[in-house]
């Protein structure tokens, strides 16, 4: 997922760079490895989260941003979910609205769930198996970003992809109200299907939810909290769901605040100052570089840094000049100094340069670095002379290039640097800053003719396909759509076939599959170069001194509902 839309999923991450720094001034809630232990004495109050802009639509089946996925974990539930706990077990998948993990039959193609009874949506309506079926159908009706990749495994999905409005998933989802069972049939075994049900896209919504993007209108959910009000120009409000009762603390624990507000509109500098002064409780946006020194000295105990499997990168439009020319793409890869970009993010303690699509420590990652000064598997620096020569050879020198970035200070700084580099190698680059509220969808839509952009991708779940297949396969490219997550617009059937082989191989031989994913990564970067990978960041959370119980999930990041006011 993207930053303002990036969902981060930490898999078998090895802390490749720097140490984990997490200091909290307050005593955390006690927790076993399997669930948080609720402490009612800390309940109450309003937590104020600060973000410079809103994160787009509130629809959990459309929104693909970390900003709101961090909130959805407390407001929506699916049949299964990722365990709500800190540490390594936050990647475990546990039953949520289902009573137990599914029974797999039919060679791994049939998943049978039993729906829990007695759970209600925040509007008071009981959750039924018909809601589950309708929610899976709705994924296609609202053109979910991964309808064509993840959920195309469901039988009946091909008809849904052709005519979403009339999607029935006939034969794919079979429900029985009498036994409360939900049977999902896949066309082929898919080892990642439970992960895909566990993310917010798999949320069970009322069958009455509109068959289109709900925009700013909250859809009722089953979580401990519900969205009560959303004005993208000012604030998003979450209140306790009056119909919520804990059915599994591992799946959906009780939260502490009575209300959680996400307030929009301030600059990131003012947000940091507000949290320092206790006027806000947490900053969502990347911390501006000039405040990091201050925070890491005066407010070190309120600063939490966690490793991530994520990547900042520059997708180049492979269907639009000048980047429909391979030499031009290679030139930009040679020219950009990834270490310089790391400086703008805050230094080597907070990020490390990457040359690959799969971040270091991620399943399938292979160390190589194709476009740099000299040979070697780790990044040694740019080669400007080669870059200029490639631009000249490509015949694209002198062309105008527009770089679209979000208008927060860190993205703007990296954008200005990239613009400077593009100018230095022979292009006439202009910077186009956009509000983070719209930038991510804007750069996906081919109608906007975006040549190159700066964006981020955070793992949805720990599988190489979540980077390579989602971001660079034909099924992720939808011309003319705001949900075309293959921003580079790259589509190659033979590489797609290799991705399919890797996915099939993962059922029987995950190690070999990861090796194949690594080869695909290398092939894409060395022969296609659709992106410039920049660096892999760490997650920095700055919380106010007034809150306690900071808990970090490798899946959901900071649990907003587990913060309590001191």
């Amino acid at each position, binding site marked *: 997922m993207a930053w303002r839309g990036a969902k981060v999923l930490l898999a078998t991450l090895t802390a490749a760079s720097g140490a984990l720094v997490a200091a909290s001034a307050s005593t955390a809630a006690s927790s076993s490895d399997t669930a948080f232990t609720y402490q009612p004495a800390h309940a109450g109050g309003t937590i104020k989260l600060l973000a410079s802009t809103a994160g787009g639509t509130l629809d959990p089946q459309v929104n693909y941003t970390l900003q709101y996925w961090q909130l959805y974990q407390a407001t929506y539930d699916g049949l299964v979910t990722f365990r709500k706990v800190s540490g390594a077990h936050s990647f475990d998948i546990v039953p949520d609205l289902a009573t137990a993990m599914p029974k797999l039959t039919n060679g791994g193609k049939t998943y049978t769930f039993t729906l829990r009874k007695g759970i209600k949506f925040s509007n008071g309506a009981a959750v039924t198996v018909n809601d589950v079926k309708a929610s899976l159908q709705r994924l296609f009706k609202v053109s979910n970003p991964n309808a064509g990749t993840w959920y195309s495994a469901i039988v009946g999905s091909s008809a849904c992809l052709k005519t979403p409005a009339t999607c029935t998933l006939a034969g794919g989802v079979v429900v029985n109200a009498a036994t409360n069972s939900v049977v999902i049939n896949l066309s082929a075994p898919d080892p990642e299907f439970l992960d895909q049900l566990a993310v917010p896209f798999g949320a069970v919504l009322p069958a009455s939810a509109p068959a289109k993007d709900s925009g700013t209108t909250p859809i009722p959910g089953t979580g401990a909290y519900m969205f009560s009000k959303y004005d993208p120009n000012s604030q998003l409000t979450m209140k306790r769901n009056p119909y919520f009762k804990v059915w599994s603390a591992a799946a959906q624990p009780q939260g502490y605040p009575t209300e959680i507000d996400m307030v929009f509109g301030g600059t990131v500098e003012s947000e940091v100052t507000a949290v320092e002064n206790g006027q806000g409780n947490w900053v969502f946006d990347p911390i501006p570089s000039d405040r990091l020194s201050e925070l890491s000295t005066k407010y070190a105990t309120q600063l939490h840094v966690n490793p991530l499997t994520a990547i900042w990168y520059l997708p180049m439009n492979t269907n639009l000049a000048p980047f429909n020319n391979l030499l031009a793409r290679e030139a930009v890869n040679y020219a950009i100094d990834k270490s310089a970009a790391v400086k703008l993010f805050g230094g080597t303690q907070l990020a490390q340069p990457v040359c690959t699509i799969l971040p270091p420590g991620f399943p399938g990652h292979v160390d190589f670095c194709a476009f740099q000064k000299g040979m070697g598997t780790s990044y040694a620096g740019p080669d400007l002379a080669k870059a200029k020569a490639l631009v000249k050879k490509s015949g694209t020198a002198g062309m105008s290039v527009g770089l679209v970035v979000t208008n927060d200070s860190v993205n703007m700084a990296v954008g200005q640097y990239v613009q400077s*580099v593009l100018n230095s190698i022979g292009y006439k680059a202009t910077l186009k800053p956009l509000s983070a509220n719209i930038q991510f969808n804007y750069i996906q839509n081919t109608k906007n003719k975006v040549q190159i952009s700066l964006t981020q991708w955070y793992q949805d779940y720990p599988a190489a396909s979540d980077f390579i297949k989602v971001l660079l396969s034909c099924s992720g490219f939808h011309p003319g759509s705001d949900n075309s997550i293959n921003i580079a617009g790259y589509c190659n059937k033979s590489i797609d076939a290799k991705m399919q082989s890797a996915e099939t191989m993962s059922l029987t031989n995950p190690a070999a599959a990861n090796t194949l994913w690594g080869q695909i990564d290398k092939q894409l970067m060395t022969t296609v170069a659709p992106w410039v990978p920049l660096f892999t960041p760490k997650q920095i959370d700055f919380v106010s001194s007034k809150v306690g119980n900071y808990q970090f999930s490798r899946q959901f990041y900071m649990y907003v509902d587990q913060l309590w006011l001191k």
Partner: protein
Amino acid sequence: MAGLAVLLFVVTICLLAPVYAGHIAHVNPFASNLQGTTTVNGKVVSVLQANTQGLGFGVTPIGPTWNISHYFLGADNQGRDVFARLLYGGRTSLFIGTVSALICVLVASVLGVVAGYFGGVIDWILSRIFDILWAFPIYLLAISLSVVLLTSGLNVGPVHVGPGSMALPIIIIAAVFVPYVARPLRGIVLSLREREFIQAAIGSGASDVRILLKEILPNVAPSIIVFFPLMVAFDMLTESALSFLSIGVQPPAASWGTIINDGLGLLYTRPWVALAPGIMIVITAGSLNILGDGARDAFDPKAKLRGSI
């Protein structure tokens, strides 16, 4: 005289920006220099320095060295020499301010004089156009036009101005200030028209063009001359505001407004990046105002200009 002296000093040092950047500081003020180094007190240091205190997060640009030969005012977040950019920024801001003021005063003079002299339908139409433009707060109108035109540029018939062109802010700023010059000039011409020498010229059969050029214009010229430096100040301030909002001069070009915007992210660590252009704007606008007042006193001590804009 003091105002003129200060203004001349500012203009001179800004015009010498290429000399300073190329031959004294040896920097390229438009290119990022994130991995660059410089010498401070005989020691080679990085232009962007990693924090070594506390948890060691963050990277801070070098602060003012107070050495005229390199990084006199320090570096910005792209590692660029702030003083060199300040001088280039002055060239841009003064150029835009001067050219837009020139265009504004020229256009406003023609429209104001024509409206005041001919009266009738022509005056009615032009006055209504002025009223409509006047009704918008200046900055709101300038911002709205900039946001729209910055995306696609200006295309009017055969005239095409690209979205990143400096001509765009010049045209926008000139246009929004036209009523503020045209209306007072129109008022002056309206009163001049009733004077005996004008009536005599009309009665003697002189053509309108002759009357405008020989009788009206020489009497309006002092007011136009007084307006000019004041408009340069206003236009420069407007350009700074638009550039500060990222809808005026576009990066990597420098203007005082863009440098203040760059300095916003460094207020806590390197405040000089934002302070320096702000001080230059104050000094330059102040000297232009003093110059305008002086010009007014020289031409007509009794003249009352239209109230504040």
